[in-house]
């Protein structure tokens, strides 16, 4: 089942937290700090579950999803958003079809694992 998980977040403590929880549960995970980093990994052939922060400097989560789609890198991946706001931004409704679910900060390890175990199944 060696499917990979990528966490995209500009906050190092969130990256470490996700890394610790998922590694403890036996997942293999890579952490990047920006949308650009995420795109680079996808170009290198990453396929898996992407946990994406919404609010990031330069390129936010939504910009990143738009770029992923533009470059045709979406196929085979599953995206879940890490968010501190209650609602997805309504302006970006077009992009929400690429998003499977939302994990709201602050999340417990159980909440994160529940989302990961559910959606990693959809990775092709």
């Amino acid at each position, binding site marked *: 089942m060696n499917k990979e998980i990528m966490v995209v977040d500009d*906050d190092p*403590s*969130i990256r*470490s*937290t996700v890394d*610790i*929880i998922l590694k*403890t549960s036996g997942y293999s995970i890579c952490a990047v700090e920006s949308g650009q980093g995420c795109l680079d990994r996808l170009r290198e052939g990453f396929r898996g579950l992407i946990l994406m922060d919404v609010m990031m400097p330069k390129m936010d989560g939504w910009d990143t999803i738009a770029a992923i789609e533009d470059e045709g890198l979406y196929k085979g991946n599953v995206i879940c958003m890490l968010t*501190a*706001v*209650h609602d997805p931004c309504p302006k970006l409704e077009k992009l929400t079809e690429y998003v499977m679910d939302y994990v709201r*900060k*602050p*999340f*417990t*390890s159980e909440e*994160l694992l529940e989302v990961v175990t559910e959606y990693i199944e959809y990775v092709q």
Partner: protein
Amino acid sequence: MKVLIVDDNTKIMAIAEVHLKKEGLEVLCVEDGKSALESARQEKPDLILLDVDMPDMSGFEVCQILKDDAELVMIPVVFLTAADDNKSRVRGLDLGAVDYVTKPFDSFELRARVRAALRTKQLQDQLATMNLELEERVDQRTEEIKQLLEQKDAFVNQLSHDLKTPLTPLVALLPMVAERTEDVESKKMLDLIMNNVDYMRNLTERTLQLAQLNSPEVSLRVEKVDLASEIRNTIESLSSVFKENGIEIVNNTTMPLDIEADRMLIKELIHNLVSNTIKYTNGDGVVTFESFLKDDNVEISIKDTGIGMTIEQQKRIFEEFYKADDSRTDRSSTGLGLTICKRIVENHGGSIRAESQGSGHGTSVHFTLPIRQSEK
């Protein structure tokens, strides 16, 4: 200052004019009521010295017209009356005159009465100006306060939002640390820390929610909601907690109770109110739910047999951060739950109140929601 003398007797008028000019006043003279009204409108005098007994239009008629005219009503009128005519003096004062001078008049008395009336007029004018200034300042200050409140909400919103990221490692990792800890003392300490982290999480969540409910931009996502089934679902989801606490549920709400509302907010409202009945009932109690249809509104009442409230607590229970038990250290309550309930109800155009027969006599909360939401 300017005085208008109105008298058909030109001799008396001339004498009065001389005396009033000695007071340093500008004096205008007219001989009949019609000219008096014209002059009053054009010249806006500070005082009108008005003869009662004139042909065509009496002084009373002139006074009546002056007092009915919003532009002229503030000009004080002093009547000139005959010495033996008590009735006229009374009628003149009743019509709104400030004073009278009897004919033939004593020049010193005339001057003194005019001076007194003008002093009052001056104070009146000052008061009116001050009032206007005050109103302007109140408007200005109200606008400032409104802006400050908006800034406060935006700040609170940003702050609680920003707190969520640093809270994440605490919420997610502390339980994992606790699980790996063997040492009993360390476990106790970690429990204490986790309790407080939970409280911080609650507080952040609720503060953010309240700021969002306060924000003027937030609109309701209106859909058809069955209040009765929302209540039933909430009761069912908490049924094990009710049982644990020995609380019996009597649900007398009638199905269906369809209203137009924001479903998520209504769920939150009911959940908060129902949780409160559990929190404030110390075992073995009854919680009763009733529903009433009143015109275009639905009223729900939730009554418990719990610890109740004092009159002081009833007054303040919906205030932000108010805790009924007055304990700042109570970690089970943020003091925001009922404030959020009130905002939710009010954002729907409804109202909410809490009643109690006093400490130890249970509490009942009643809220009313309109069946339809008006289009915005």
